[in-house]
Protein backbone atom coordinates (compact mmCIF):
# COMPACT_ATOMS: atom_id res chain seq x y z
CA UNK A 1 0.00 0.00 0.00
CA UNK A 2 1.30 3.45 -0.83
CA UNK A 3 1.99 5.96 1.91
CA UNK A 4 -0.71 8.63 2.11
CA UNK A 5 0.50 12.16 1.47
CA UNK A 6 -1.10 13.38 4.69
CA UNK A 7 -2.06 11.31 7.69
CA UNK A 8 -3.07 12.18 11.23
CA UNK A 9 -3.09 9.80 14.19
CA UNK A 10 -4.98 10.60 17.36
CA UNK A 11 -4.65 14.31 16.61
CA UNK A 12 -5.91 16.58 19.39
CA UNK A 13 -6.11 20.31 19.84
CA UNK A 14 -7.47 21.56 23.15
CA UNK A 15 -7.81 25.24 24.02
CA UNK A 16 -7.63 26.47 27.58
CA UNK A 17 -10.66 28.65 28.15
CA UNK A 18 -12.06 30.28 31.30
CA UNK A 19 -14.77 27.60 31.36
CA UNK A 20 -12.32 24.70 31.08
CA UNK A 21 -10.55 22.73 28.40
CA UNK A 22 -12.21 23.14 25.00
CA UNK A 23 -11.76 20.01 22.91
CA UNK A 24 -11.77 21.62 19.44
CA UNK A 25 -10.18 18.64 17.70
CA UNK A 26 -10.33 15.36 19.56
CA UNK A 27 -8.66 12.17 18.43
CA UNK A 28 -8.83 12.66 14.69
CA UNK A 29 -7.40 9.98 12.40
CA UNK A 30 -7.42 10.76 8.70
CA UNK A 31 -5.58 9.97 5.48
CA UNK A 32 -5.33 11.94 2.28
CA UNK A 33 -3.71 10.38 -0.79
CA UNK A 34 -1.84 12.16 -3.49
CA UNK A 35 -4.24 13.85 -5.92
CA UNK A 36 -7.22 13.26 -3.65
CA UNK A 37 -9.77 15.68 -2.19
CA UNK A 38 -11.01 14.97 1.32
CA UNK A 39 -14.10 17.04 2.09
CA UNK A 40 -14.61 18.04 5.73
CA UNK A 41 -18.13 19.04 6.77
CA UNK A 42 -19.85 19.88 10.01
CA UNK A 43 -21.53 22.74 11.77
CA UNK A 44 -20.02 25.98 12.93
CA UNK A 45 -17.55 25.38 15.75
CA UNK A 46 -17.11 21.64 15.18
CA UNK A 47 -13.37 22.11 14.68
CA UNK A 48 -12.88 22.12 10.91
CA UNK A 49 -10.61 25.17 10.73
CA UNK A 50 -8.70 24.14 13.83
CA UNK A 51 -8.06 20.72 12.29
CA UNK A 52 -6.70 22.33 9.11
CA UNK A 53 -4.54 24.75 11.05
CA UNK A 54 -3.19 22.04 13.32
CA UNK A 55 -2.20 19.88 10.35
CA UNK A 56 -0.30 22.84 8.86
CA UNK A 57 1.29 23.56 12.27
CA UNK A 58 -0.22 27.05 12.30
CA UNK A 59 -1.33 26.11 15.82
CA UNK A 60 0.42 23.61 18.07
CA UNK A 61 -1.22 20.23 18.49
CA UNK A 62 -2.04 19.10 22.02
CA UNK A 63 -1.33 15.44 21.19
CA UNK A 64 -1.12 13.04 18.29
CA UNK A 65 0.82 12.90 15.04
CA UNK A 66 0.70 14.60 11.66
CA UNK A 67 2.53 12.58 9.02
CA UNK A 68 3.63 14.18 5.78
CA UNK A 69 4.79 11.53 3.33
CA UNK A 70 5.14 9.13 6.25
CA UNK A 71 7.14 11.41 8.56
CA UNK A 72 5.77 12.97 11.73
CA UNK A 73 6.22 16.70 11.18
CA UNK A 74 5.13 17.67 14.68
CA UNK A 75 8.68 17.08 15.94
CA UNK A 76 10.44 18.56 12.90
CA UNK A 77 12.98 21.32 13.47
CA UNK A 78 12.34 24.75 11.97
CA UNK A 79 14.83 23.95 9.22
CA UNK A 80 13.09 20.69 8.32
CA UNK A 81 9.72 22.42 8.57
CA UNK A 82 10.73 25.08 6.05
CA UNK A 83 10.94 22.52 3.25
CA UNK A 84 7.71 20.78 4.21
CA UNK A 85 5.86 24.07 4.54
CA UNK A 86 6.43 24.88 0.87
CA UNK A 87 4.44 21.78 0.05
CA UNK A 88 1.53 22.64 2.33
CA UNK A 89 -0.54 25.78 1.79
CA UNK A 90 -3.86 27.20 2.85
CA UNK A 91 -6.66 29.16 1.14
CA UNK A 92 -9.04 31.08 3.39
CA UNK A 93 -12.74 31.91 3.40
CA UNK A 94 -12.36 35.64 3.41
CA UNK A 95 -9.67 36.44 0.89
CA UNK A 96 -9.77 40.07 1.94
CA UNK A 97 -8.60 39.70 5.51
CA UNK A 98 -5.93 37.19 4.47
CA UNK A 99 -4.31 39.52 1.91
CA UNK A 100 -1.99 42.35 2.89
CA UNK A 101 -3.89 45.51 1.89
CA UNK A 102 -0.70 47.51 1.35
CA UNK A 103 0.68 45.19 -1.31
CA UNK A 104 -0.37 45.14 -4.95
CA UNK A 105 -1.64 41.93 -6.53
CA UNK A 106 1.77 41.31 -8.12
CA UNK A 107 3.60 41.87 -4.83
CA UNK A 108 1.26 39.57 -2.90
CA UNK A 109 1.89 36.71 -5.30
CA UNK A 110 5.64 37.39 -5.53
CA UNK A 111 6.08 37.52 -1.75
CA UNK A 112 6.34 33.80 -0.98
CA UNK A 113 8.62 33.31 -3.99
CA UNK A 114 11.00 36.02 -2.81
CA UNK A 115 11.00 34.76 0.77
CA UNK A 116 11.70 31.16 -0.17
CA UNK A 117 14.02 32.05 -3.09
CA UNK A 118 12.61 29.24 -5.19
CA UNK A 119 12.90 31.55 -8.20
CA UNK A 120 15.64 34.18 -8.40
CA UNK A 121 16.06 37.26 -10.55
CA UNK A 122 13.57 40.12 -11.00
CA UNK A 123 12.58 39.15 -14.50
CA UNK A 124 12.17 35.49 -13.64
CA UNK A 125 9.98 36.32 -10.65
CA UNK A 126 7.85 38.67 -12.72
CA UNK A 127 7.45 35.94 -15.31
CA UNK A 128 6.41 33.42 -12.62
CA UNK A 129 3.85 35.89 -11.19
CA UNK A 130 2.39 36.43 -14.64
CA UNK A 131 2.15 32.70 -15.17
CA UNK A 132 0.39 32.19 -11.80
CA UNK A 133 -2.06 34.99 -12.53
CA UNK A 134 -2.80 33.47 -15.90
CA UNK A 135 -3.39 30.02 -14.40
CA UNK A 136 -5.80 31.53 -11.87
CA UNK A 137 -7.70 33.56 -14.46
CA UNK A 138 -6.49 37.00 -13.37
CA UNK A 139 -5.91 39.32 -16.32
CA UNK A 140 -2.39 40.72 -16.36
CA UNK A 141 -3.65 44.29 -16.09
CA UNK A 142 -4.44 43.71 -12.40
CA UNK A 143 -0.79 43.22 -11.47
CA UNK A 144 -0.51 46.72 -10.02
CA UNK A 145 -3.98 47.00 -8.47
CA UNK A 146 -4.72 46.52 -4.77
CA UNK A 147 -7.01 43.86 -3.30
CA UNK A 148 -9.63 46.35 -2.06
CA UNK A 149 -10.22 47.46 -5.65
CA UNK A 150 -11.30 43.96 -6.60
CA UNK A 151 -14.42 41.92 -5.84
CA UNK A 152 -14.53 38.74 -3.76
CA UNK A 153 -14.18 36.35 -6.69
CA UNK A 154 -11.04 38.02 -8.02
CA UNK A 155 -9.59 38.28 -4.50
CA UNK A 156 -10.06 34.56 -4.06
CA UNK A 157 -8.10 34.08 -7.30
CA UNK A 158 -5.24 36.10 -5.79
CA UNK A 159 -5.32 33.87 -2.70
CA UNK A 160 -5.08 30.83 -4.94
CA UNK A 161 -2.23 32.26 -7.04
CA UNK A 162 -0.33 33.00 -3.83
CA UNK A 163 -0.97 29.51 -2.45
CA UNK A 164 0.29 27.97 -5.71
CA UNK A 165 3.43 30.12 -5.88
CA UNK A 166 5.67 27.51 -4.26
CA UNK A 167 4.27 24.52 -6.18
CA UNK A 168 2.67 22.88 -3.15
CA UNK A 169 1.41 19.32 -3.10
CA UNK A 170 -1.29 19.82 -0.48
CA UNK A 171 -3.70 22.71 0.11
CA UNK A 172 -6.13 23.17 2.97
CA UNK A 173 -9.07 25.06 1.43
CA UNK A 174 -10.99 26.58 4.34
CA UNK A 175 -14.44 27.61 3.06
CA UNK A 176 -12.91 29.11 -0.10
CA UNK A 177 -16.25 29.77 -1.80
CA UNK A 178 -18.58 30.39 1.14
CA UNK A 179 -18.44 34.18 0.86
CA UNK A 180 -19.02 34.22 -2.89
CA UNK A 181 -22.15 34.52 -5.01
CA UNK A 182 -23.17 31.27 -6.67
CA UNK A 183 -22.17 32.30 -10.19
CA UNK A 184 -18.70 33.26 -8.95
CA UNK A 185 -18.54 30.25 -6.66
CA UNK A 186 -18.92 27.97 -9.67
CA UNK A 187 -16.03 29.71 -11.46
CA UNK A 188 -13.74 29.19 -8.46
CA UNK A 189 -14.78 25.54 -7.97
CA UNK A 190 -13.98 24.83 -11.60
CA UNK A 191 -10.61 26.53 -11.24
CA UNK A 192 -9.77 24.49 -8.11
CA UNK A 193 -10.65 21.27 -9.91
CA UNK A 194 -8.67 22.22 -13.05
CA UNK A 195 -5.60 23.02 -10.96
CA UNK A 196 -5.88 19.74 -9.12
CA UNK A 197 -5.95 17.88 -12.45
CA UNK A 198 -3.03 19.71 -14.00
CA UNK A 199 -0.80 19.82 -10.93
CA UNK A 200 -1.80 16.62 -9.12
CA UNK A 201 -2.73 18.54 -5.96
CA UNK A 202 -4.32 17.08 -2.85
CA UNK A 203 -6.98 19.10 -1.06
CA UNK A 204 -8.55 19.10 2.34
CA UNK A 205 -11.72 20.99 1.45
CA UNK A 206 -13.51 22.49 4.45
CA UNK A 207 -17.08 23.66 3.99
CA UNK A 208 -20.50 23.61 5.55
CA UNK A 209 -22.11 23.47 2.09
CA UNK A 210 -23.02 19.86 1.39
CA UNK A 211 -23.78 20.35 -2.30
CA UNK A 212 -20.35 21.90 -2.81
CA UNK A 213 -18.58 19.20 -0.84
CA UNK A 214 -20.34 16.51 -2.81
CA UNK A 215 -19.26 18.10 -6.07
CA UNK A 216 -15.58 18.47 -5.26
CA UNK A 217 -14.66 15.58 -2.94
CA UNK A 218 -13.49 12.02 -3.49
CA UNK A 219 -14.11 11.17 0.15
CA UNK A 220 -15.99 13.07 2.85
CA UNK A 221 -15.44 13.27 6.59
CA UNK A 222 -18.26 14.45 8.87
CA UNK A 223 -17.27 16.12 12.14
CA UNK A 224 -19.31 16.82 15.25
CA UNK A 225 -17.87 18.72 18.22
CA UNK A 226 -14.26 17.85 17.48
CA UNK A 227 -14.90 14.19 16.67
CA UNK A 228 -15.12 12.39 13.36
CA UNK A 229 -18.51 10.66 13.24
CA UNK A 230 -18.41 9.28 9.69
CA UNK A 231 -16.00 8.95 6.76
CA UNK A 232 -16.88 7.47 3.39
CA UNK A 233 -16.47 7.88 -0.32
CA UNK A 234 -18.61 10.67 -1.67
CA UNK A 235 -21.16 8.30 -3.21
CA UNK A 236 -21.38 6.01 -0.17
CA UNK A 237 -21.90 8.92 2.16
CA UNK A 238 -24.76 10.36 0.15
CA UNK A 239 -26.39 7.03 -0.73
CA UNK A 240 -25.89 5.30 2.66
CA UNK A 241 -25.51 7.96 5.35
CA UNK A 242 -25.35 5.97 8.58
CA UNK A 243 -24.54 8.13 11.58
CA UNK A 244 -27.74 9.84 12.83
CA UNK A 245 -26.01 13.21 12.62
CA UNK A 246 -25.00 12.66 9.00
CA UNK A 247 -28.57 11.65 8.20
CA UNK A 248 -29.98 14.78 9.82
CA UNK A 249 -27.43 16.94 8.05
CA UNK A 250 -28.25 15.51 4.63
CA UNK A 251 -31.97 15.70 5.29
CA UNK A 252 -31.70 19.41 6.17
CA UNK A 253 -30.18 20.51 2.86
CA UNK A 254 -32.48 22.80 0.92
CA UNK A 255 -32.44 21.86 -2.74
CA UNK A 256 -33.78 23.16 -6.01
CA UNK A 257 -34.93 19.65 -6.86
CA UNK A 258 -38.73 19.76 -6.98
CA UNK A 259 -39.05 16.02 -6.37
CA UNK A 260 -37.45 16.49 -2.95
CA UNK A 261 -39.50 19.55 -2.14
CA UNK A 262 -42.23 17.93 -0.14
CA UNK A 263 -40.29 14.99 1.22
CA UNK A 264 -40.36 14.81 4.98
CA UNK A 265 -37.50 16.54 6.69
CA UNK A 266 -35.89 15.29 9.81
CA UNK A 267 -35.65 18.36 12.02
CA UNK A 268 -33.10 18.12 14.80
CA UNK A 269 -33.91 19.55 18.19
CA UNK A 270 -31.43 21.69 20.11
CA UNK A 271 -28.14 23.08 18.97
CA UNK A 272 -24.45 22.29 19.05
CA UNK A 273 -22.96 22.96 22.46
CA UNK A 274 -19.43 24.12 23.17
CA UNK A 275 -17.16 21.13 23.70
CA UNK A 276 -15.78 22.29 27.05
CA UNK A 277 -14.71 19.33 29.21
CA UNK A 278 -17.08 17.01 27.32
CA UNK A 279 -18.39 13.87 28.95
CA UNK A 280 -17.16 10.59 27.49
CA UNK A 281 -19.38 9.00 24.89
CA UNK A 282 -21.02 10.26 21.73
CA UNK A 283 -21.21 14.05 21.68
CA UNK A 284 -24.28 14.01 19.46
CA UNK A 285 -26.10 11.97 22.11
CA UNK A 286 -28.21 14.86 23.57
CA UNK A 287 -29.71 15.70 20.15
CA UNK A 288 -29.91 12.17 18.83
CA UNK A 289 -33.36 10.64 18.33
CA UNK A 290 -31.92 7.11 18.58
CA UNK A 291 -29.79 7.57 21.70
CA UNK A 292 -29.52 4.59 24.02
CA UNK A 293 -27.48 3.78 27.08
CA UNK A 294 -24.56 2.48 25.01
CA UNK A 295 -24.06 5.99 23.60
CA UNK A 296 -22.53 7.10 26.87
CA UNK A 297 -19.52 4.90 26.24
CA UNK A 298 -16.50 5.91 24.19
CA UNK A 299 -17.27 5.67 20.45
CA UNK A 300 -14.73 4.55 17.88
CA UNK A 301 -14.88 4.51 14.09
CA UNK A 302 -15.89 1.08 12.79
CA UNK A 303 -15.67 -0.02 9.17
CA UNK A 304 -19.21 -0.97 8.15
CA UNK A 305 -18.40 -1.39 4.45
CA UNK A 306 -15.20 -1.09 2.49
CA UNK A 307 -13.83 2.38 3.18
CA UNK A 308 -16.98 3.46 5.05
CA UNK A 309 -16.36 4.24 8.74
CA UNK A 310 -18.96 5.20 11.35
CA UNK A 311 -18.63 6.02 15.06
CA UNK A 312 -22.02 5.02 16.45
CA UNK A 313 -22.79 2.20 18.87
CA UNK A 314 -26.41 2.01 17.66
CA UNK A 315 -25.92 1.89 13.90
CA UNK A 316 -22.38 0.55 13.72
CA UNK A 317 -22.18 -1.41 16.97
Amino acid at each position, binding site marked *: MTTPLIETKGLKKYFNTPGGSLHAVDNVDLKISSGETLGVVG*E*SGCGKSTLGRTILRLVDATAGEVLYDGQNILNFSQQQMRDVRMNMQMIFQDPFTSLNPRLSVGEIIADPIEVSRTVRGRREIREKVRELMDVCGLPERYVNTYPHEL*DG*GRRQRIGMARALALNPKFIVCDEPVSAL*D*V*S*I*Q*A*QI*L*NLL*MDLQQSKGLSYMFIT*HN*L*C*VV*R*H*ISNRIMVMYMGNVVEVASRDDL*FSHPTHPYTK*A*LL*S*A*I*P*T*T*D*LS*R*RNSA*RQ*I*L*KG*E*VANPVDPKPGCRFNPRCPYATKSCQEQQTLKEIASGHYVACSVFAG
Partner: protein
Amino acid sequence: MERKLLEVRNLHVRYNTDEAVVYALNGLDIDLEKGETLGLVGETGAGKTTLALSIMQLLPQKVGQITGGSILYDEKELLKFSVKDMLALRGDKISMIFQDPMTSLNPVMSVGDQISEVLEQHFPELSKEQKSEKIDEIMNMVGIPSSRKVEYPHQFSGGMKQRIVIAMALIAEPDLLIADEPTTALDVTIQAQILELIRQLKVKFNSAMILISHDLGVVAEVCDNVAIMYAGEVIEYGPIETVYLKKDNHPYTRGLFNSLPELTRNVDRLEPIMGYMVDPTNLPAGCSFAARCDRCMDICISKKPPVFSDGAHSIKCYLYQHWADK
Protein backbone atom coordinates in the same frame (compact mmCIF):
# COMPACT_ATOMS: atom_id res chain seq x y z
CA MET B 1 -59.66 36.36 -7.28
CA GLU B 2 -57.93 37.33 -4.03
CA ARG B 3 -57.38 40.99 -3.55
CA LYS B 4 -53.76 42.10 -3.83
CA LEU B 5 -52.05 42.86 -0.55
CA LEU B 6 -49.04 44.50 -2.14
CA GLU B 7 -48.43 45.88 -5.62
CA VAL B 8 -45.08 47.41 -6.43
CA ARG B 9 -45.03 49.07 -9.84
CA ASN B 10 -42.11 50.38 -11.86
CA LEU B 11 -40.18 51.27 -8.72
CA HIS B 12 -36.98 53.28 -9.15
CA VAL B 13 -34.64 53.81 -6.21
CA ARG B 14 -31.19 55.31 -6.19
CA TYR B 15 -28.51 56.06 -3.62
CA ASN B 16 -26.86 59.43 -4.05
CA THR B 17 -23.36 59.04 -2.68
CA ASP B 18 -20.45 61.46 -2.82
CA GLU B 19 -18.74 59.47 -5.55
CA ALA B 20 -21.62 58.43 -7.73
CA VAL B 21 -25.31 57.70 -8.12
CA VAL B 22 -26.06 54.03 -7.50
CA TYR B 23 -29.10 52.88 -9.47
CA ALA B 24 -30.33 50.20 -7.06
CA LEU B 25 -33.89 49.56 -8.32
CA ASN B 26 -34.70 50.14 -11.96
CA GLY B 27 -38.34 49.58 -12.78
CA LEU B 28 -39.16 46.82 -10.35
CA ASP B 29 -42.59 45.15 -10.23
CA ILE B 30 -43.90 42.64 -7.70
CA ASP B 31 -47.35 41.49 -6.61
CA LEU B 32 -48.32 39.71 -3.45
CA GLU B 33 -51.66 38.23 -2.49
CA LYS B 34 -52.94 37.81 1.05
CA GLY B 35 -51.32 34.81 2.72
CA GLU B 36 -48.91 34.26 -0.17
CA THR B 37 -45.21 33.55 0.29
CA LEU B 38 -42.96 35.13 -2.30
CA GLY B 39 -39.27 34.29 -2.56
CA LEU B 40 -37.02 37.10 -3.71
CA VAL B 41 -33.75 35.72 -5.06
CA GLY B 42 -30.70 37.52 -6.38
CA GLU B 43 -26.98 37.84 -5.91
CA THR B 44 -25.11 40.50 -3.94
CA GLY B 45 -26.14 43.99 -4.96
CA ALA B 46 -29.26 42.94 -6.87
CA GLY B 47 -31.35 45.34 -4.74
CA LYS B 48 -33.20 42.90 -2.48
CA THR B 49 -32.64 44.78 0.76
CA THR B 50 -33.32 48.07 -1.02
CA LEU B 51 -36.76 46.78 -2.01
CA ALA B 52 -37.50 45.70 1.57
CA LEU B 53 -36.39 49.06 2.96
CA SER B 54 -38.44 50.89 0.32
CA ILE B 55 -41.62 49.04 1.33
CA MET B 56 -40.89 49.73 5.01
CA GLN B 57 -39.93 53.33 4.15
CA LEU B 58 -36.68 52.84 6.01
CA LEU B 59 -34.24 53.85 3.28
CA PRO B 60 -31.27 55.80 4.64
CA GLN B 61 -32.28 59.43 4.79
CA LYS B 62 -30.87 61.86 2.22
CA VAL B 63 -28.85 59.11 0.51
CA GLY B 64 -31.65 56.76 -0.48
CA GLN B 65 -34.24 58.22 -2.81
CA ILE B 66 -37.32 56.81 -4.49
CA THR B 67 -37.38 58.50 -7.89
CA GLY B 68 -40.41 56.86 -9.44
CA GLY B 69 -43.09 54.20 -9.30
CA SER B 70 -45.64 53.21 -6.73
CA ILE B 71 -46.10 50.87 -3.78
CA LEU B 72 -49.73 49.99 -3.14
CA TYR B 73 -50.45 48.30 0.17
CA ASP B 74 -54.03 47.13 0.50
CA GLU B 75 -54.81 49.48 -2.40
CA LYS B 76 -53.37 52.49 -0.59
CA GLU B 77 -50.32 54.35 -1.88
CA LEU B 78 -47.57 53.91 0.72
CA LEU B 79 -45.39 56.56 -0.86
CA LYS B 80 -48.02 59.13 0.16
CA PHE B 81 -48.25 57.97 3.78
CA SER B 82 -47.26 60.39 6.54
CA VAL B 83 -44.46 59.42 8.90
CA LYS B 84 -47.04 58.79 11.61
CA ASP B 85 -49.24 56.55 9.46
CA MET B 86 -46.19 54.64 8.31
CA LEU B 87 -45.09 54.10 11.90
CA ALA B 88 -48.49 52.66 12.77
CA LEU B 89 -48.44 50.41 9.71
CA ARG B 90 -44.97 49.11 10.53
CA GLY B 91 -45.91 48.26 14.08
CA ASP B 92 -49.21 46.70 13.23
CA LYS B 93 -49.47 45.34 9.70
CA ILE B 94 -45.93 44.89 8.38
CA SER B 95 -43.00 43.32 10.26
CA MET B 96 -39.46 42.83 9.15
CA ILE B 97 -36.81 40.30 10.18
CA PHE B 98 -33.19 41.14 9.44
CA GLN B 99 -30.28 38.81 8.75
CA ASP B 100 -28.57 39.84 11.97
CA PRO B 101 -31.03 39.22 14.81
CA MET B 102 -29.27 41.83 16.94
CA THR B 103 -30.71 44.50 14.62
CA SER B 104 -34.04 43.80 16.31
CA LEU B 105 -32.91 42.92 19.84
CA ASN B 106 -31.89 45.19 22.68
CA PRO B 107 -28.67 43.82 24.21
CA VAL B 108 -29.36 45.22 27.70
CA MET B 109 -32.92 43.94 28.14
CA SER B 110 -34.00 40.38 28.96
CA VAL B 111 -35.77 38.64 26.09
CA GLY B 112 -38.91 38.25 28.22
CA ASP B 113 -39.09 42.01 28.76
CA GLN B 114 -38.60 42.61 25.05
CA ILE B 115 -41.42 40.26 24.11
CA SER B 116 -43.54 41.92 26.81
CA GLU B 117 -42.88 45.33 25.28
CA VAL B 118 -44.13 44.15 21.90
CA LEU B 119 -47.22 42.65 23.54
CA GLU B 120 -47.88 45.89 25.41
CA GLN B 121 -47.83 47.76 22.12
CA HIS B 122 -50.26 45.47 20.35
CA PHE B 123 -52.44 44.16 23.13
CA PRO B 124 -52.55 46.89 25.79
CA GLU B 125 -55.73 45.33 27.19
CA LEU B 126 -53.88 42.25 28.50
CA SER B 127 -53.44 41.92 32.27
CA LYS B 128 -50.03 41.24 33.74
CA GLU B 129 -50.82 37.55 34.24
CA GLN B 130 -52.20 37.19 30.73
CA LYS B 131 -49.10 38.81 29.32
CA SER B 132 -46.81 36.53 31.28
CA GLU B 133 -48.79 33.53 30.08
CA LYS B 134 -48.56 34.72 26.50
CA ILE B 135 -44.76 35.19 26.77
CA ASP B 136 -44.41 31.59 27.97
CA GLU B 137 -46.60 30.39 25.14
CA ILE B 138 -44.58 32.26 22.52
CA MET B 139 -41.25 31.05 23.82
CA ASN B 140 -42.43 27.46 23.89
CA MET B 141 -43.79 27.88 20.39
CA VAL B 142 -40.32 28.72 19.07
CA GLY B 143 -38.78 25.91 21.08
CA ILE B 144 -37.04 27.82 23.87
CA PRO B 145 -37.86 26.90 27.48
CA SER B 146 -39.85 29.80 28.95
CA SER B 147 -37.68 29.62 32.08
CA ARG B 148 -34.99 31.33 30.00
CA LYS B 149 -37.06 34.49 29.51
CA VAL B 150 -35.00 36.26 32.18
CA GLU B 151 -31.82 35.84 30.11
CA TYR B 152 -30.24 38.45 27.85
CA PRO B 153 -29.69 38.10 24.08
CA HIS B 154 -25.96 37.33 24.33
CA GLN B 155 -26.77 34.22 26.36
CA PHE B 156 -28.51 32.66 23.37
CA SER B 157 -27.01 31.13 20.22
CA GLY B 158 -27.51 32.74 16.81
CA GLY B 159 -30.30 30.34 15.90
CA MET B 160 -32.13 30.93 19.19
CA LYS B 161 -31.88 34.70 18.84
CA GLN B 162 -33.31 34.47 15.34
CA ARG B 163 -36.19 32.35 16.65
CA ILE B 164 -36.96 34.94 19.31
CA VAL B 165 -36.93 37.69 16.68
CA ILE B 166 -39.29 35.68 14.48
CA ALA B 167 -41.62 35.17 17.44
CA MET B 168 -41.58 38.91 18.18
CA ALA B 169 -42.27 39.74 14.54
CA LEU B 170 -45.25 37.41 14.48
CA ILE B 171 -46.91 38.22 17.83
CA ALA B 172 -48.64 41.20 16.26
CA GLU B 173 -50.04 38.84 13.64
CA PRO B 174 -48.89 41.10 10.80
CA ASP B 175 -50.50 40.82 7.38
CA LEU B 176 -47.07 41.03 5.79
CA LEU B 177 -43.75 39.71 7.04
CA ILE B 178 -40.57 40.67 5.22
CA ALA B 179 -37.67 38.37 6.12
CA ASP B 180 -34.28 39.49 4.77
CA GLU B 181 -31.92 36.50 4.67
CA PRO B 182 -33.21 35.18 8.03
CA THR B 183 -31.15 31.98 7.91
CA THR B 184 -28.06 32.93 5.93
CA ALA B 185 -25.80 33.12 8.97
CA LEU B 186 -27.02 29.81 10.40
CA ASP B 187 -25.99 26.18 10.05
CA VAL B 188 -28.12 23.91 7.88
CA THR B 189 -29.70 21.95 10.71
CA ILE B 190 -30.58 25.20 12.48
CA GLN B 191 -31.74 26.69 9.19
CA ALA B 192 -34.07 23.72 8.77
CA GLN B 193 -35.50 24.40 12.26
CA ILE B 194 -36.12 28.05 11.42
CA LEU B 195 -37.68 27.35 8.04
CA GLU B 196 -39.98 24.78 9.64
CA LEU B 197 -40.94 27.35 12.28
CA ILE B 198 -41.67 29.99 9.66
CA ARG B 199 -43.81 27.51 7.75
CA GLN B 200 -45.85 26.59 10.84
CA LEU B 201 -46.33 30.15 12.05
CA LYS B 202 -47.37 31.33 8.62
CA VAL B 203 -50.13 28.76 8.55
CA LYS B 204 -51.16 29.67 12.08
CA PHE B 205 -51.31 33.43 11.51
CA ASN B 206 -51.99 33.38 7.75
CA SER B 207 -49.47 36.15 7.16
CA ALA B 208 -48.17 36.91 3.68
CA MET B 209 -44.41 36.82 3.44
CA ILE B 210 -41.56 38.06 1.29
CA LEU B 211 -38.58 35.80 1.91
CA ILE B 212 -35.35 37.35 0.68
CA SER B 213 -32.53 34.94 0.01
CA HIS B 214 -29.64 34.35 -2.32
CA ASP B 215 -30.28 30.61 -1.94
CA LEU B 216 -32.59 29.10 -4.55
CA GLY B 217 -32.94 25.99 -2.38
CA VAL B 218 -34.20 27.85 0.68
CA VAL B 219 -36.81 29.62 -1.41
CA ALA B 220 -38.01 26.33 -2.92
CA GLU B 221 -38.57 24.97 0.60
CA VAL B 222 -41.08 27.56 1.77
CA CYS B 223 -42.36 29.75 -1.06
CA ASP B 224 -45.34 29.66 -3.41
CA ASN B 225 -43.87 32.01 -6.01
CA VAL B 226 -40.41 33.27 -6.79
CA ALA B 227 -39.08 36.52 -8.24
CA ILE B 228 -35.51 36.47 -9.57
CA MET B 229 -33.75 39.83 -9.40
CA TYR B 230 -30.85 41.17 -11.42
CA ALA B 231 -29.53 44.74 -11.25
CA GLY B 232 -32.63 46.14 -9.59
CA GLU B 233 -35.25 44.46 -11.77
CA VAL B 234 -37.32 41.31 -11.53
CA ILE B 235 -36.14 39.43 -14.60
CA GLU B 236 -38.24 36.31 -13.98
CA TYR B 237 -41.33 35.60 -11.92
CA GLY B 238 -43.57 32.58 -11.51
CA PRO B 239 -44.82 29.73 -9.34
CA ILE B 240 -41.98 27.63 -7.86
CA GLU B 241 -43.29 24.55 -9.70
CA THR B 242 -42.89 26.31 -13.05
CA VAL B 243 -39.63 28.21 -12.59
CA TYR B 244 -37.83 25.24 -10.97
CA LEU B 245 -38.84 22.91 -13.80
CA LYS B 246 -35.71 24.42 -15.40
CA LYS B 247 -37.40 24.32 -18.79
CA ASP B 248 -38.20 27.92 -19.71
CA ASN B 249 -35.96 30.34 -17.83
CA HIS B 250 -34.26 33.68 -18.21
CA PRO B 251 -30.62 33.04 -19.23
CA TYR B 252 -29.57 34.48 -15.86
CA THR B 253 -31.83 32.11 -13.91
CA ARG B 254 -30.54 29.22 -16.02
CA GLY B 255 -27.01 30.37 -15.20
CA LEU B 256 -27.81 30.32 -11.49
CA PHE B 257 -29.19 26.79 -11.70
CA ASN B 258 -26.16 25.60 -13.69
CA SER B 259 -23.80 27.17 -11.18
CA LEU B 260 -25.22 25.10 -8.33
CA PRO B 261 -23.87 21.64 -7.68
CA GLU B 262 -26.82 19.32 -7.17
CA LEU B 263 -27.44 16.67 -4.56
CA THR B 264 -28.70 13.92 -6.77
CA ARG B 265 -26.93 14.42 -10.07
CA ASN B 266 -23.20 14.25 -10.81
CA VAL B 267 -21.76 16.83 -13.16
CA ASP B 268 -18.07 16.90 -14.01
CA ARG B 269 -17.96 20.62 -14.52
CA LEU B 270 -20.24 23.39 -13.41
CA GLU B 271 -21.27 25.93 -16.01
CA PRO B 272 -20.83 29.27 -14.31
CA ILE B 273 -22.18 32.55 -15.62
CA MET B 274 -19.33 34.34 -17.33
CA GLY B 275 -18.09 37.72 -16.18
CA TYR B 276 -19.16 39.75 -13.17
CA MET B 277 -22.17 41.76 -11.95
CA VAL B 278 -22.87 44.96 -13.90
CA ASP B 279 -21.80 48.26 -12.34
CA PRO B 280 -24.93 49.83 -10.78
CA THR B 281 -23.54 53.32 -11.30
CA ASN B 282 -23.27 52.78 -15.03
CA LEU B 283 -26.10 50.66 -16.38
CA PRO B 284 -26.34 49.80 -20.09
CA ALA B 285 -29.16 51.06 -22.30
CA GLY B 286 -30.43 47.58 -23.16
CA CYS B 287 -30.76 44.45 -21.02
CA SER B 288 -28.55 44.65 -17.88
CA PHE B 289 -27.57 41.02 -18.30
CA ALA B 290 -26.59 41.34 -22.00
CA ALA B 291 -22.83 41.57 -21.40
CA ARG B 292 -22.80 38.20 -19.58
CA CYS B 293 -25.43 36.45 -21.66
CA ASP B 294 -24.43 33.60 -23.96
CA ARG B 295 -27.62 34.09 -26.01
CA CYS B 296 -27.38 37.84 -26.43
CA MET B 297 -28.87 39.28 -29.66
CA ASP B 298 -28.54 42.71 -31.26
CA ILE B 299 -31.85 43.94 -29.88
CA CYS B 300 -30.77 43.06 -26.30
CA ILE B 301 -28.00 45.65 -26.48
CA SER B 302 -30.08 48.44 -27.93
CA LYS B 303 -33.42 48.04 -26.18
CA LYS B 304 -34.57 47.03 -22.69
CA PRO B 305 -36.71 43.91 -22.91
CA PRO B 306 -40.29 44.19 -21.65
CA VAL B 307 -42.01 41.43 -19.69
CA PHE B 308 -43.21 38.45 -21.74
CA SER B 309 -45.73 36.16 -20.05
CA ASP B 310 -47.01 32.64 -20.40
CA GLY B 311 -49.84 32.46 -17.89
CA ALA B 312 -48.44 33.02 -14.41
CA HIS B 313 -44.83 32.73 -15.61
CA SER B 314 -43.14 35.87 -16.88
CA ILE B 315 -39.64 36.57 -18.17
CA LYS B 316 -37.95 39.82 -19.17
CA CYS B 317 -36.02 38.52 -22.18
CA TYR B 318 -36.42 38.74 -25.96
CA LEU B 319 -35.95 34.97 -26.24
CA TYR B 320 -39.56 34.75 -25.05
CA GLN B 321 -41.05 37.27 -27.45
CA HIS B 322 -43.39 34.58 -28.79
CA TRP B 323 -45.02 34.35 -25.34
CA ALA B 324 -46.45 37.83 -25.73
CA ASP B 325 -48.96 36.66 -28.35
CA LYS B 326 -50.47 33.92 -26.20
